[in-house]
């Protein structure tokens, strides 16, 4: 045991190093990898938000007031940020159903897990639908990535970039959740040892999407 074992070199060494079966994090590798993916995604969204901060600080034109731009008129009364507030609550609701789905998954209650995940996906799809409505409305009012009638041109670029990238994450999440949900229902994971950590991994992604929205809501819509 005390003698050092010669390690393979070259391509055999690559295989050796990557398969030496040592791990730091006591969790399924898929979960650790999801965490690392989310860490890298954190940097992407941070770069978008910091970029937005920078152009908003540096422009000399007035920044459009989000409460007015995203306001809706309901029964003749102008309510600021109404649609965005509803979208926020839709996403918060979906976060709760997802958390419960993860819990039910570990209890191996496949039926409840399935329905909670489908509910989460449905709320996510609702969110994307409302975002599509918001985009349509702004585009019809003349907001473009390079100009808009309400103030600094950088507003449009930041808006479409940030909400677009977030919306893409939500859309991908809806598909991801549905795939996992139907596999839970069909008993796919029963054949693989009956482990339901995949529900928690999908849940991590979903909560992260909600987390990013918290920051977008604060910095883009409220600030």
């Amino acid at each position, binding site marked *: 045991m005390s003698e050092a074992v010669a390690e393979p070199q070259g391509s055999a060494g690559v295989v050796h190093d990557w398969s030496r079966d040592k791990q730091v*994090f*006591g*969790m399924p590798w898929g979960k650790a990898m999801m*965490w690392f993916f989310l*860490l890298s995604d*954190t*940097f992407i969204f*941070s*770069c978008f938000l*910091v*970029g937005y*901060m*920078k*152009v*908003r*600080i*540096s*422009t*000399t*034109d*007035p920044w*459009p*007031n989000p*409460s*007015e*731009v995203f*306001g*809706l008129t309901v029964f003749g009364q102008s309510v*600021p*940020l109404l649609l965005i*507030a509803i979208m*926020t*609550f839709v996403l*918060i609701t979906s*976060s*709760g159903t*997802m*958390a*419960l789905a993860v*819990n039910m998954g*570990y209890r191996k209650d496949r039926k409840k897990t399935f329905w909670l995940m489908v509910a989460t996906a449905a709320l996510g799809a609702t969110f994307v639908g409302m975002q599509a409505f918001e985009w349509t409305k702004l585009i019809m*009012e003349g907001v473009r990535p390079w100009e808009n*009638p*309400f*103030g600094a041109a950088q507003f449009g670029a930041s808006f479409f970039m940030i909400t677009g990238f977030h919306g893409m994450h939500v859309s991908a999440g809806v598909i991801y959740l549905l795939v996992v949900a139907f596999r839970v229902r069909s008993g796919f994971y029963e054949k693989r040892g009956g482990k*339901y*950590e995949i529900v*928690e991994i999908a*849940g*991590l992604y979903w*909560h*992260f999407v*909600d*987390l990013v929205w*918290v*920051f977008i*809501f*604060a910095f883009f819509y*409220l*600030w």
Partner: protein
Amino acid sequence: MAAEGQQHPLKIYWIMWGALFVLSAFSYATDFMDRGALRHFLILLFMFAKAGGIVWIFMHMGWERLALKIAILGPPVAIIVLIWLMAYEGLYVQDTRTEYYGESTFEPETPHH
């Protein structure tokens, strides 16, 4: 615990869920305030409270081992440096623009719905 996955009493999820609704309502309420230091402080306060709750309870980070906490929550601290650099740079660019191009002559339209 980590090996068998994250299993916790349902009650904690219900509390967190409720708290997120309340905090979101508070967040939205800040939009009815005038822009200023208090409003910005409250926006950040509610934002970090919500973000913390989501990461700690819903993403189970509070129950994970310290090694993972450090690996995931440590690197984003570097973003603070980026924020500082870009804020500094942004103010400088705004100053030069005002000096060389003059004040903005943009006349914004009021959004109508």
